[in-house]
């Protein structure tokens, strides 16, 4: 289908952000080179342009950062909660002030559309700091008994799909409860975390309270394994999550893991189809499907399959893929060449196993990492595309006849992070939600996030909750 509308380019200006040619590690309030002098480059996934050269933390740097965090812990944890709160409120406000700059930066470094960084990531980042700021002096009211104590130094490892938002989910509750942190951003998206270091400076945050160590998996492993870390928080793949669970075995480290998913989006025959189609699109194509809670399995009731798929395909044909800085772009770039090849190979496997592949006519830019929105139909539960987390813009469509079958299929996965239910009937929503083994269930909506709302997985999607009152527990000695 030809595009109904032709849009003139509407690029957001990148002049608002000033990226330095190189960045150091942020340890004890100062930018510093790695002990062994190693650096790596971060590129813009939409153009493969090198954005900056980043110091790469090794185990010596991890040790230095943990020592700085330990030193800062005494004073920081002894501050009255109301004073810690005011630091976090300052950070929240500075993020709001600088949010357009950070949105453009995030889009450049991650490849996701400016529409998303501007309207979803950044508002949520600021809201998360604002929310946990308010808890810092109210911990006595949080349901963990009087005067709950922090754990100490938190080692935090975050992914590349929502770089600054995952930083906020980690750092805000850690600081509110009185911990100090050493955080490792992903190797493909280190920039927003380093800009956050500058925000800590502007907020006057005491040195050592937040330390940022860009690096690869080995940096994260060294941080997790460091004997003077009291808390490990990780968001990323289930495979690495399991490695971390093994690495901390026998220690006293408190652990929270937010891992992969294979979310089922269940559409019943009485669902409002147009609304469901929007939810399905949002569920799997938001952030190019590089979302742990993506609705990557569509379970549609057989009687409305044809109608729903027709609508869905029509809708996919109107999605605009291209320059992530363009304000009209719906689908941006895949974050890295490595991720693109993973998606490509899983999709090839899907075809080889006999699932039917479909994509709208979609021209891909010549440079950068791109993947067209893709549907698989005739998918069975045994297919790889129905079982493995693809972490890309690929939706597998399965059908069901009865609610029981829908529930059984939805739960037929080692994961348990998210699910969606589309029906007009309230009692059906609640009965199905009760049976789903998933940490977040959206009904007649999808991919909704709020700092007040706990988020996290069942089963191999990890354990612990981030957000809300529940999110405090992972950072308190309770």
């Amino acid at each position, binding site marked *: 289908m030809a595009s109904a509308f032709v849009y003139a380019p509407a690029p957001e200006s990148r002049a608002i952000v000033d990226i330095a040619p190189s960045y150091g590690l942020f340890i004890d309030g100062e930018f510093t080179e790695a002990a062994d002098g190693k650096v790596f480059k971060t590129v813009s996934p939409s153009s493969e342009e090198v954005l900056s050269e980043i110091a790469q933390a090794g185990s010596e740097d991890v040790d230095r950062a943990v020592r700085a965090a330990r030193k800062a812990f005494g004073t920081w944890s002894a501050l009255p909660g*109301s004073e810690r709160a*005011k630091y976090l*409120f300052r950070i929240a406000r500075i993020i709001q002030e600088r949010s357009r700059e950070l949105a453009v930066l995030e889009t450049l470094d991650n490849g996701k559309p400016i529409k998303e960084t501007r309207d979803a990531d950044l508002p949520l980042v600021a809201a998360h700091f604002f*929310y946990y700021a308010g808890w*810092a002096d109210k911990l006595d009211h949080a349901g963990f008994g009087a005067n709950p104590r922090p754990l100490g130094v938190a080692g935090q490892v975050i992914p590349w799909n929502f770089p600054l938002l995952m930083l906020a989910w980690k750092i805000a509750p850690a600081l509110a409860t009185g911990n100090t942190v050493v955080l490792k951003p992903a190797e493909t998206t280190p920039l927003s975390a380093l800009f956050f270091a500058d925000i800590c400076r502007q907020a006057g945050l005491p040195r050592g309270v937040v330390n940022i160590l860009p690096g690869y998996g080995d940096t994260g492993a060294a941080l997790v394994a460091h004997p003077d870390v009291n808390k490990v928080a990780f968001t990323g793949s289930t495979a690495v999550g399991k490695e971390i669970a093994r690495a901390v075995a026998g220690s006293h480290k408190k652990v929270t893991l937010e891992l992969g998913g294979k979310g089922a989006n269940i559409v019943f025959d009485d669902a409002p189809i147009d609304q469901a189609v929007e939810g399905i699109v949002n569920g799997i194509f938001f952030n190019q499907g590089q979302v742990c809670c993506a609705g990557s399995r569509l379970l549609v009731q057989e009687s409305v399959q044809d109608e729903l798929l027709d609508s869905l395909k029509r809708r996919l044909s109107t999605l605009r893929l291209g320059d992530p800085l363009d304000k009209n772009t719906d689908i941006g770039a895949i974050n890295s060449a490595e991720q693109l090849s993973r998606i490509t190979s899983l999709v090839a496997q899907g075809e080889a196993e006999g699932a039917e592949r479909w994509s709208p006519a979609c021209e891909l830019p010549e440079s950068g990492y791109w993947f067209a929105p893709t549907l698989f139909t005739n998918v069975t539960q045994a297919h790889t595309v129905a079982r493995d987390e693809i972490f890309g813009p690929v939706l597998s469509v399965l059908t069901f006849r009865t609610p029981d079958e829908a529930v059984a299929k939805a739960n037929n996965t080692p994961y348990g992070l998210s699910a969606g239910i589309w029906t007009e009937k309230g*009692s059906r929503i*609640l*009965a*199905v939600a009760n049976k789903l083994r998933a940490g977040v269930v959206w009904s007649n909506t999808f991919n909704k996030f709020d700092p007040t709302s706990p988020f996290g997985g069942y089963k191999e999607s990890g354990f612990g909750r981030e957000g*809300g009152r529940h999110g405090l527990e992972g950072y308190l000695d309770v």
Partner: protein
Amino acid sequence: MSEKTEKTERLSVFKTYKLYIGGKFPRSESGRVYEVTTATSAADAAGKGKWLANAPLSSRKDARDAVVAARKAFGGWSGATAYNRGQILYRIAEMLEGRREQFVREVADAEGLSKSKAAAQVDAAIDRWVWYAGWTDKIAQVVGGGNPVAGPFFNLSSPEPTGVVAVLAPQESSFLGLVSVVAPVIATGNTAVVIASEKSPLPALSLGEVLATSDLPGGVVNILSGRTAEIAAPLAAHQDVNAIDLAGADDVLAKELEIAAADNLKRVLRPQPVDYATTPGTERMTAFLETKTVWHPTGSLGASGSSY
């Protein structure tokens, strides 16, 4: 021009203190004012009073106008997200911080305090706004939640604001006390009609200027100065007021007002000794919250095509 360069001190400009109703700054409709001096404050009762200002002496009609404004603002304010209300309360703290010196002066004059003691009061008042800014989106998780009823029902209790709250601000603590009683009322989505400290109304009237520039919708807080007993009586009896905080009433007045309040079963917070310097709990919020419990069937998993 005279060749004599005798330096005369510049004559200052006095501020006309006005009421704060519906986001505007009217004079009392009665045209009345009363003299506020340092001598009217308890701290300086025996001393020679310095004239500070003429404050509006509000009438019962002013009180009714304020209730109309508060009611009008209630839908929007209670319907705003808790996050949005928190942002606005925090904005009030930001605006106050910028006018800290003014309030230190006014509180020192009003309560006969030294500069440093007055500054401590103002700092605590700013921090109190921050404290309640953080409560707006947390109180529901602390006082509400899912109820495990013995049946196939989803059952959720949530707090909701009760409506328009009349607040008799504390008589002695003209600013910290005032903030400590107003902030919890509006944090949860109520709107307020506030009677300032009778002897020391000026910090309260100046607070109106801060609220007006803090993105707080007009009518959410309305501030009246005058004789507490005169203004409180029509508010306690008003059929469109949902609750009353009697912090600023003595025992005799409090009893009278509580009796009047019974006519439409207003929620009443009785006067009690409070040390406004210490961090409050949740009681000033919960006093003006309703609890709403929603039931919904969850159906049951059964054979194909079953009721769920």
